[in-house]
């Protein structure tokens, strides 16, 4: 750029053309306002940190599951991202969404229950056709290694799962989940009060019903109040209402719920807790073509499962796998399974088999999170305050810098002002383009970064102008000084900007959360500073050097003998 024959006019035209193209792209994207971060528009952010080092794949899987949960709870525009290799950030703009904390955080509860009634047959504990022909078999046909699939590495994630639940109420610790599920369902259904009291009656009656403690007998003769509640649930639309679970998922009580296909079930109290499941996997058994899902239970689980299989084999009574109160699968028993290794066969594809196996294996989340998540809720008034404070500070900062440069550099000060405006224009275009393409959101620290950058940007010009003045002081004419000063100032600025760019990149990589926004803004503006400096400020000064006002050292040009502190300025011939 520092060729002696540089044509400043042409460079400027190209520069403005590039800027016009940038704004053309912005116009195509169609947004003239940057995406604001939660701290500027209000909302809730929940950051969960995994215990230990979860690995990228598991973290992404957890992110996907949480994403499904949050967006499934009817919240619009929630964004779930991973951060720093061990964190998941849920950002919910708009309203206060603290009620989602538990939804996000909980690890799902897997339980095995028996089916007393389902909508497929319309009767209770009867034996007509099954929806998907799902069966459960002894897994003796499976090669051993398939049975072991996935064992080991995910064990820790299951954490402290509870024991078998046929002894009674141990659902206390996660009661909150159940209630929430119940409420969710109620909101979807009409006649809430009547149905809720029917459920309560069912629970109360089941507590008195001695057979309820023995689910194998209970399903043949379910508590009447529960059958009534089930009938009422069905009558009021049942699963068609989009309810995932009609009642709280308490292992000690019967449960009325649905599966993904909208079939309603009346289920017995839980027989086996998910903790008793040692492993699950998807595989194609030898000499078969279809996928099956394999299960293997631990010692206690195996014993109970053996009882269940003894009771259910040969009948068409179903066994339900319930995750978070929703039926994942309800197979019949095809054989006696005494060793705790079973397989679920049915109409599985590779994807559905894997998905079921994953749900079985992980409870739901493949990783455990630290107890206390980081929760921030920004109310709309704070968000508004912060936005206006950021903009005010930016406006004042920019104005003061411009005023100072104008006072000190006079005529050259106008170049600083023009350069700052141009830099601001490019920055705005880049912020808009990046929020469109790279999901960049403007946060309060981001705005602070932009304001701080005003100083760094203006400094490039100061270095340059001081160089020009120095060159003129040793007797060079302005037109010569502009070029020779440029060569020196350019290198200084490149070195200095490289340092601040380095800082921005390091900050961006190592900092967490909002600090990233600051680092990004700082890095972005450092690059823009160089662009403006090279392709706007320098050609602009070269261009102005042609005018007598500057090269003759007019009193207000900032280059007069008086301001330079020398007796006369070399004019270097006619301009």
């Amino acid at each position, binding site marked *: 750029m520092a060729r002696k024959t540089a044509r400043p006019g042409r460079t400027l035209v190209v520069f403005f053309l590039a800027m016009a193209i940038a704004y053309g792209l912005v116009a195509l994207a169609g947004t003239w306002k940057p995406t604001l971060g939660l701290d500027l528009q209000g909302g809730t952010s929940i950051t969960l940190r995994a215990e230990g080092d979860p690995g990228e794949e598991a973290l992404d899987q957890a992110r996907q599951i949480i994403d499904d949960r949050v967006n499934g709870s009817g919240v619009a525009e929630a964004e779930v991202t991973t951060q720093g290799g061990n964190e998941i950030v849920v950002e919910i703009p708009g309203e206060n969404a603290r009620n989602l904390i*538990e939804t996000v955080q909980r690890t799902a509860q897997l339980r095995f229950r028996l089916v007393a009634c389902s909508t497929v047959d319309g009767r209770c504990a009867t034996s007509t056709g099954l929806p998907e022909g799902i069966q459960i078999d002894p897994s003796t046909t499976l090669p051993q290694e398939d049975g072991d699939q996935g064992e080991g590495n995910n064990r820790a994630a299951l954490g402290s799962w509870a024991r078998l639940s046929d002894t009674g109420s141990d659902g206390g610790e996660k009661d909150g989940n159940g209630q929430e599920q119940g409420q969710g369902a109620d909101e979807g259904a009409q006649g809430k009060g009547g149905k809720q009291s029917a459920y309560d009656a069912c629970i109360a009656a089941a507590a008195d019903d001695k057979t309820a403690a023995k689910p194998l007998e209970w399903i043949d003769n379910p508590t009447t109040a529960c059958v009534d509640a089930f009938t009422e649930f069905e009558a009021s639309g049942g699963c068609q209402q989009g309810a995932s679970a009609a009642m709280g998922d308490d292992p000690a009580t019967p449960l009325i719920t649905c599966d993904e296909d909208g079939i309603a079930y009346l289920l017995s109290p839980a027989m086996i807790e998910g903790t008793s499941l040692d492993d699950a996997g998807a595989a194609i058994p030898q000499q078969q073509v279809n996928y099956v899902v394999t299960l293997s239970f631990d010692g206690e689980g195996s014993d109970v499962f053996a009882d269940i299989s003894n009771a259910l084999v040969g009948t068409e009574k179903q066994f339900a796998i319930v995750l978070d109160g929703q039926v994942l699968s309800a197979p019949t028993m095809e054989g006696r399974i005494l060793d705790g290794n079973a397989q679920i066969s049915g109409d599985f594809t590779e994807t559905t088999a894997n998905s079921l196996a994953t749900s079985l294996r992980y409870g739901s989340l493949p990783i455990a999170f630290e107890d206390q998540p980081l929760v921030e809720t920004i109310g709309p008034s704070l968000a508004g305050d912060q936005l206006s404070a950021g903009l005010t500070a930016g406006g004042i900062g920019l104005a003061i810098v411009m005023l100072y440069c104008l006072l000190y550099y006079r005529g050259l000060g106008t170049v600083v002002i023009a350069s700052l405006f141009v830099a601001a224009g490019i920055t705005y275009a880049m912020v808009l383009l990046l929020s469109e393409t790279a999901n960049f959101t403007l946060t309060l620290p981001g705005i602070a970064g932009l304001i701080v950058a005003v100083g760094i940007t203006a400094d490039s010009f100061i270095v340059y102008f001081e160089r020009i003045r120095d060159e003129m002081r040793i007797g060079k004419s302005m037109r010569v000084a502009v070029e020779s000063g440029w060569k020196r100032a350019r290198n200084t600025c490149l070195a200095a900007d490289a340092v601040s760019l380095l800082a921005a990149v390091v900050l961006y990589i190592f900092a967490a959360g909002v600090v990233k926004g600051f680092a990004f803004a700082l890095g972005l503006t450092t690059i823009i500073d160089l662009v403006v400096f090279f392709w706007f400020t320098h050609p602009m000064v070269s261009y102005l050097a042609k005018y007598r006002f500057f090269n003759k050292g007019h009193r207000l040009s900032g280059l007069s003998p008086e*301001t330079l502190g020398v007796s006369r300025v070399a004019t270097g011939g006619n301009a």
Partner: protein
Amino acid sequence: MGRFSQLGNDLHSGRRSIDFVGRRWYLYAVSAVLIAIAVFGLSYKGLNLGIEFTGGTQYRVPVASATQDDADALRTAVVDSGVEGVGNPIVSTAGDDAVQIQVEALSLEDSATVTEAIVAAAGISADDLSQEDIGASWGRQIAERALIGLVVFVVLVVLFIWAYFREWKMSVAALVALAHDVIITVGVYAFTGFEVTPATVTGILTILAFSLYDTVVVFDKVRENTAAMRESRKSYAQAANLAVNQTLVRSINTSLVALLPVGSILYVGAVQLGASSLQDLALALFVGMAAGTYSSVCIATPMLVHLKNTEDDVKLAEKRARARERAAADPYAAVPNFAEDMPIHNDPGVDPSSQR
């Protein structure tokens, strides 16, 4: 402004010169005292760590105009909610339209109880309440990451300066200046008791960049001047001191231009928002930038000269310059003064103690 420009010209030509390098022991002493005070403050008072580092729950309640009465009413409401861990809340006004309440980390249910109490007392909708729940371990990770970032940055910058200037002594001097800035900034925090938050940490990390940026600009001029050391018949110290003087006007301008927007953030942040990330960031930047400008002029360059003084050709240049200076100052200095009973010497002028 004219007079300042005149000063700029004088400084540039060397007609007027502030002897930063010559007064280096004085400057070192000033900085040493400042650093000693900072270290004392740090060890004696410690840092006032924000809720992000200690863990806890923080509420920010919007009110029409924040007064002490509002704060007191909210404090009573929070204490009366009867939740464990809120017996001694820290309540303060933040800006002119909010009250900030900090309590210990609360469980979800307890937090909901306290929220209800606050909402009822302030008469606002629950949606307008801002709240932060932070486990104590979060701050540790922020600090850890910041520390890793700091180390990586310092290593990279040392390599960069070394590669750019081909002079490891410049890296060392720049690092000393950097440490000086950071320690003084941290010391200011220790003494004033301002809260240290992640925004403060960000600010301090940014000071690193600014301090070095400034030092790089000064060193660039030092290199330019000392490269021509032999021709300009100056010692390294003189050439470096001239460089500092020549960039002094720029240094002052730069710091002003950098401090002005930061000052505006600080002012607006403090007045409009009260305790906020904006204020924390700006305060750290303001102190650090001021220290950064001072250190690049008064610490980094004298330190560089100090380190260079052990080199042979620098020593040689120094010797020559001193001899020239001596000769220029008083060509007859070698001639001993006349005294009544002076011994007669045939070989004058080799005794350096008679100089100065």
